[in-house]
């Protein structure tokens, strides 16, 4: 193995990922070459492999921040959903209301008011029989209108 090759494989050698053959060639070269040995020692000092790496820890209160962000995103999504539905829903509601109004008008215009007429007739009859009052008489007896009418109908009898 030459210097360049040895220097190329130094990290792989440090991680123990070289095959046995290359490994022994590396060891032999490092043992006799001072320059490569120095590079190896420098690298070994700095790069100690994955098991020596310190893991960064998440800072405190990160959960609060994550939770807050999540809540605000949930709110935004709900509003977003409403915003996409609303443009479809609005004309649909207007059309439904219009159709309902037209239908109601048509229905009301075509419905005969039988029951109301019957009730009115019964009421008129009862009033006539019980109190001798014609409910549809605009000038019932004892009223001022009737008195005036009587004067007009028989003026000679009342006014001498």
């Amino acid at each position, binding site marked *: 193995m030459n210097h360049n090759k040895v*220097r*190329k*494989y*130094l*990290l*792989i050698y440090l*991680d123990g*990922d070289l095959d046995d053959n290359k490994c022994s060639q590396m060891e032999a070269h490092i043992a006799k070459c001072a320059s490569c040995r120095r*590079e190896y020692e*420098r*690298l070994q*000092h*700095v*790069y100690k*492999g*994955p*098991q020596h*790496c310190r*893991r*960064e*820890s*998440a*800072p405190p209160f*990160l*959960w609060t*921040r*994550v939770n807050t*962000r*999540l809540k605000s*995103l949930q709110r935004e*999504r709900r509003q977003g959903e409403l915003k996409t539905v609303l443009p479809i829903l609005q004309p649909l509601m207007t059309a439904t209301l219009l159709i309902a109004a037209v239908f109601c008008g048509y229905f009301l215009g075509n419905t005969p008011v039988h029951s109301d007429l019957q009730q009115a007739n019964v009421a008129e009859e009862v009033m006539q029989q019980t109190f001798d009052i014609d409910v549809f008489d605009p000038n019932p007896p004892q009223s001022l209108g009737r008195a005036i009418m009587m004067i007009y109908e028989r003026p000679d009898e009342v006014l001498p």
Partner: protein
Amino acid sequence: MQERELIKKLRSGDEQAYKRLFDFYADRIYNICVRFLNSRQEAEDAVQDIFCKIYFSIDRFREDARLTSWIYRISVNHCLNAQRQKRRARFFSLDWLSEGEMTLKSARSDDPQDSLEKKETESIIQAAINGLSEKQRTALVLFRYEGLTYQEIAEVLNISVAAVESRLFQAKQELCKKLLPLLKDF
């Protein structure tokens, strides 16, 4: 709680199940985001986006897959998209003129617990990883910082184990090439 049961509860909108999911995955997702975006602030924003994505797309999760792989995939895709957007924005703002300087600066850790040297070396490695291609970087971040196995990385990226091996092999070669000149002072 069994994964299946958890998924069922998530689909029904159970908030407690969602909190449980957060507690279990928050650190992992945050870690990936920091590694990809090189900024804790951006990583925090990304974690929020990713958890919202998980919440709203849990119905689309196929149950023959593993939940972990699915969550990792969402996270990786989100980070890659965010990075692409950032790169585009940087390009149009002409900040790319000082890009080499930026990757190193932004990679620096600001945790006081870290020793100066550790910070320096980690930021150098991070800057070198940032210079890799998207495919190589993704595989390497999942391998180095998340400690996923080749099989797990294959599931997340939806590629074969052989493809993962090849990507990592190339990524490490490329990383080595980029790292050695940066380590002259060490």
